[in-house]
């Protein structure tokens, strides 16, 4: 937003052959120079181009009432262009108080960097691919180490259960679990409704609406319940863990733990992992039930009463189906909490790094969740679990 500025500045450019005079009048600051600066520089460039011989530019500052840092930058810009073209440059009637301000930028050339002055290395495609592969391998290595650290810390928790930070565990479990109930219910309910409607439309053509219960209950218990819950948890809690631990990393809080002789894995990661392990299957079971309930409500529209629906569900679903879904949930919980914490611990410096960690936590969780889900589908198919 340009600011209302009561000051005025004028630049009068006069050139005759190799000599030019610029008469400046008024108050020169970042606001008054808008437009004026470019115009003057254009005049100068045109004049410099039309004269190959040594040019002489003099700037008369007798009428200048005020010159701030922007005004000085303006004069430096004109001087630099003049000197770059091999011409001479004089300042007339410069107020003595501005002299040190102009002279403090020595050498002026430093203020005009060439294009290749960017300190960030330019790399070609092959280098970038190689670097990417290397980083991927490093990341895989870190993740493996992290899995080992977590396994050892869980072993430690089993041996010394009193030393686990159970208060943190409860807080995290409440935040990631209880607080997630509304959103999980909403999504599970809608998934149940949509699934029931979609399958009823197809099955009705064969007069087989009664089988909707079988179809919907199997897909919800084995697949959709755990998967949808995991996706919601990844979006809510994995990002939250990454952001929280990431901010702690940025603020050196994690370093403070390490130098204080406290293992950050046990202090920060373990309570979150345990909470994830507990919360994911419970939420998943909860979402299964809401989904089935929503489907049964939907089927009322097809004149299938509750009792018929539940009879069919009970006939279709075996303990194995529920256990398979819950086992998957347990793994998803591990992935969500683990990846969130890992990305948090890997956070660089600055606010942007925390955002990046949260993003990476969600993306990595989702990828791993889908991969584990696919693996499970294959195992179920092979073993019948």
């Amino acid at each position, binding site marked *: 937003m340009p*600011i209302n500025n009561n000051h005025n500045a004028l630049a009068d450019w006069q050139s005759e052959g190799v000599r030019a005079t610029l008469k400046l009048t008024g108050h020169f600051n970042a606001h008054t*120079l*808008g437009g004026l600066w470019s115009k003057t520089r254009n005049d100068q460039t045109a004049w410099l181009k039309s004269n190959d011989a040594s040019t002489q530019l003099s700037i008369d500052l007798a009428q200048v009432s005020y010159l701030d840092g922007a005004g000085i930058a303006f004069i*430096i810009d004109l001087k630099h262009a003049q000197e770059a073209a091999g011409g001479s440059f004089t300042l007339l009637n410069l107020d003595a108080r501005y002299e040190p301000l102009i002279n*403090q930028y020595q050498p002026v050339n430093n203020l005009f960097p060439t294009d290749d002055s*960017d*300190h960030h290395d330019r790399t070609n495609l092959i280098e970038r691919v190689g670097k990417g592969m290397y980083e991927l391998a490093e990341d895989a290595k870190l993740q493996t180490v992290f899995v080992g650290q977590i396994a050892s810390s869980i072993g430690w928790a089993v041996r010394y259960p009193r030393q686990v930070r159970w208060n943190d565990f409860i807080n995290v479990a409440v935040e990631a679990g209880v607080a997630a109930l509304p959103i999980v219910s909403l999504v599970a309910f809608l998934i149940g409704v949509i699934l029931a409607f979609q399958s009823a439309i197809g099955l009705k053509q064969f007069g087989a609406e009664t089988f909707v219960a079988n179809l919907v209950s199997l897909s919800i218990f084995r697949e959709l319940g755990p998967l949808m819950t995991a996706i919601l948890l990844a979006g809510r809690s994995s990002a939250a863990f990454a952001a929280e631990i990431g901010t702690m990393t940025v603020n050196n809080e994690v370093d403070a733990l390490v130098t204080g002789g406290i293992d950050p894995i046990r202090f920060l990661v373990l309570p979150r992992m345990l909470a994830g392990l507990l919360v994911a299957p419970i939420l998943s079971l909860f979402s299964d039930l809401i989904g089935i309930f929503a489907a049964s409500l939907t089927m009322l529209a097809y004149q299938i009463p509750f009792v018929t629906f539940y009879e069919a569900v009970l006939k279709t679903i075996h303990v194995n189906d529920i256990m398979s879904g819950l086992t998957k949930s347990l793994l998803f919980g591990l992935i969500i909490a683990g990846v969130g914490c890992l990305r948090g611990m890997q956070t660089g410096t*600055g606010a942007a790094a925390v955002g990046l960690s949260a993003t990476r936590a969600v993306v990595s969780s989702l990828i791993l969740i889908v991969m584990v889900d696919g693996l499970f589908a294959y195992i179920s198919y092979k073993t019948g679990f």
Partner: protein
Amino acid sequence: MTTSPTATAENIIEVKDLTVGYGSNIVLQNLNFSVKRGEVFVILGGSGCGKSSLLKNMIGLYDPPKGSVLIEGQDIVTAAGTERQNILTRFGVMYQQGALFGSMSLLENVRLFLEEYTQLSDDEMSLIARCKLDLVGLLPFEAFMPSEISGGMQKRAAIARAMALDPDILFLDEPSAGLDPITSAELDQTILSISRNLGITFVVVTHELPSIYTIADRIIMLDKNTKGIIAEGDPRWLREHSDNPQVRRFFNRGADIALTENNLHPETLPA
């Protein structure tokens, strides 16, 4: 309160009956002081006496429960909309931790306010921003991200950013904390040169005694117990002439204040 003799000049900031704090937690009460155009004004005081809170009230970040802060005649406490926006462009602020935007390079950090408020071209804005970075000695680092430079450098970059629009007033919150003595002294010289040559008014919160003696034209000293100003004026004069023992101890780096504050007994300390 001890007051040293001062010359009269136009007041650029006037603080009237200002109370700092919130609810029942009042840190400072009924402050009255003014900052004169072109001077380097330093706010002093022990830890927790409300120096930073006072500064945040003066720059309009907090709404004080009572009082007014006039910046060039306009009250920042009650100003709203365009009027407030206009007051905000009159001053620049350097925060204690630098508060640079982490996703932008140093040059982009300094350029940001120019982009927002002026109609200059890209090259022109970059040149102005480079001049500011050069003033604080960070020109070679213009393409660096804040996370790639040291804490002291971040502070200097923050000063450069505060100066982007060449404001009339610069508020600096603990500028020399975290800087080595040489850089700190250089920074003091930069402040002095900007103040003398451009007539920019500085309001500085600091405890660094060498820095205070170098830059300060006038100081106020705040006190936690009386919740007010216990000294005002030229620090060199106050060091010699103040009748308040606490003020003299501060200027002479007296240790007994620290001892009484921490309830330590001198006899328990190692000799």
